[in-house]
């Protein structure tokens, strides 16, 4: 064991593990509230300007969004397998699955960057350069503010998640984890799934809802 796993103020390793995962769950609650604010605002404006939002969402790339959803869901699977490998103590599998999860995360971010690039080219980035045909342009800009801020916030969380995976990779290369102690893998796993769940909500409400309406 290269690092002393039990901190001085805990009596047992179980107590420490319970504290760490409760800490992450509480943190995820704060994240729900954080995203909740912007989801609420989006829901209200979607209701107020239904037609404009439907028209604006037609310009989102449903194929790239769909591929990204698949990529992210797969990364959640590899994350679970990583936690599983840590629990059973197979270091090679742990390293492999952590790396695979990180790669899938990067693929997601790459595809997202391509999507953002297309939106810039099409003049759909809010601000002075915003171009949108028709009478609904004004409120369509509002839609794109939400699109960029919500997916941007999500992408920021993905970047942090990939960073955490890199940290886990470094730790497991040093052989920190063993079947009795792999709390960091589990806790980062919780975070990764949470970021995944946020996308599961973002994809339908931005790309899919109301698509069959409007022009």
């Amino acid at each position, binding site marked *: 064991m290269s690092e002393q796993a039990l901190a001085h103020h805990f009596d047992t390793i179980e107590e420490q593990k319970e*504290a760490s995962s409760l800490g992450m769950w509480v943190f995820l609650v704060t994240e729900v509230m954080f995203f909740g604010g912007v989801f609420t*605002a989006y829901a209200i404006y979607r209701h107020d300007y239904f037609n404009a939002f439907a028209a604006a969402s037609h310009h989102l790339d449903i194929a790239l969004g769909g591929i990204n959803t698949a990529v992210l869901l797969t990364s959640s699977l590899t994350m679970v397998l990583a936690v599983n490998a840590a629990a059973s103590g197979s270091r090679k599998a742990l390293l492999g699955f952590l790396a695979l999860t990180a790669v899938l995360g990067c693929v997601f971010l790459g595809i997202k960057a391509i999507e953002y690039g297309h939106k810039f080219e099409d003049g759909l980035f*809010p601000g002075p350069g915003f171009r949108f045909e028709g009478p609904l342009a004004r409120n369509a800009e509002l839609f794109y503010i939400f699109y960029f801020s919500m997916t941007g916030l999500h992408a920021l969380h993905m970047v942090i998640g990939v960073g955490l995976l890199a940290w886990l990779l470094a730790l497991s290369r040093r052989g920190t984890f063993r079947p009795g102690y792999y709390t960091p893998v589990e806790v980062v796993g919780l975070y990764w799934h949470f970021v995944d769940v946020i996308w599961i909500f973002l994809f339908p409400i931005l790309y899919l809802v109301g698509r069959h309406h409007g022009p």
Partner: protein
Amino acid sequence: MTTRLELSPPPQHYLNWSYTARSWLLSTDHKRIGILYLLSITFFFFIGGAFAVLIRLELMTPAGDLVHSETYNRLFTAHGVIMIFFFLIPSIPAVLGNFLIPLMIGARDLAFPKLNLLSWYIFLAGAAFTMAAVFSGGVDTGWTFYAPYSSVYSNSAVMLTGIGVFITGFSSILTGLNFIVTIHTLRAPGLTWFRLPLFVWAHYATSLIMVLGTPVLAITVALLALERLFGVGVFDPRIGGDPILFQHLFWFYSHPAVYIMILPGMGVVSEIVACFSRKRVFGYSAIALASLAIAVLGFLVWGHHMFVSGQSAYASNIFSILSFLVAIPSAIKVFNWTATFYRGSIAYDTPMLYAFGFIGLFTMGGLTGLFLATLAVDVHVHDTYFIVAHFHYIMVGGMVMAYMGGLHFWWPKITGRMYPEGWAKFAALVIFIGFNLTFFPQFVLGYLGMPRRYHVYPDEFQVLNVMSSAGASILGVGYLIPMIYFVWSIRHAPVASSNPWRAAGLEWQTPSPPPADNFPETPVVETEAYPYSEMEVEVVDV
């Protein structure tokens, strides 16, 4: 001829094991971090107070003769932002809560000691941004940052202040998270939930609000920043945005934040009332659950800030009723404290004087809150000095009184020294008189129609305003006296025993000041909280 006494070296405790700056600035000891918070928020209290002095000086005369209206806007904004985000919200939780929660539950530290230190640094980083804003011209939006004024029109340092408030929010989130996990996982053997001191219950409820509410403020301020930076935003009416939405999101945090600023005070008062009445708190579980009820109901009343903002009448009615409901758990607490006095053997030490002050002033602040929750009355007194008086009765008359009471009560534990009782009683009296003279006239001013946030006013309001300013100067003196004798006491006051008040609670069963690891061995709890009646019997038996 002198006799040399054989002195054993003083026992090692959390203050004297090391004196290096590094041992303080990188300490993960919850007690040292509590002291770091104490020093920082005291500093901000006096900065915020200095702005209040300027406000009260300007309001001595009806004409705007000291400052321009623009400057005046910056003064009250700086006062509000500093006092709320950098003094009141961290006050009792970050200082006393940090110091006492592990001691009260028999733990060696909070669950995440490094996170605790990080939260102090985050606090300082947020404060640095806000101070930079305040001293590079200031902000003029009021502490509420209403859009679109704050996002489009204001020419002041809104961005810097917003960043400061955003960052500081994370400090509060981390503190709340740490408290919740600590209280769940680190209670001593035998310390069940319903044996916890009410101080811990109050902080649990406070932490829930910090964790659930603060992120919403963060995202709201972030959206505001987006709007201001890029000239496009979600609250901007030019693209169909809704400024009222800003108010909804803002008050969704900022009303519960009011309870962040009062619940810990209620926790302190419960401890003091039990100790100085020598009785178990009457209705222990009612008070504990009332804390949770306040935390829950507190999230359902934000709309009462928007009765005149164009909110629908139907929504206003609902919010009005829900606001009335908050009075129930608050009243439960006040009645139970009062019932604790009944047939108690009451001692009038300084902490108890502050507790009395709290109960009376909080009751006045709370009851005038009901005036404001009433739709028709609110239309009359909205944005007048009535509301200024109301929330100062809660924040200053309530929270600051409780904070002062708590500081006196636990001062012997924190520093190992007593404070001078005579001076402390005198200061408590000065603060009480100064407070009432400052803020009671403001109820009258508001009812007569003087609006808040103006630096000029009609001549007929001058008498009451001069009274208020006179009271403020008395209040200022009242705060300076403890500042002086607390500092003095660290070197010169009598050494405190481990339990000078003969108080119940685990924090009194370890030496004053406590050793770095809190307890020589983990205590085991076998009784309910506040077993004062059993303690009295023991004394009689001896």
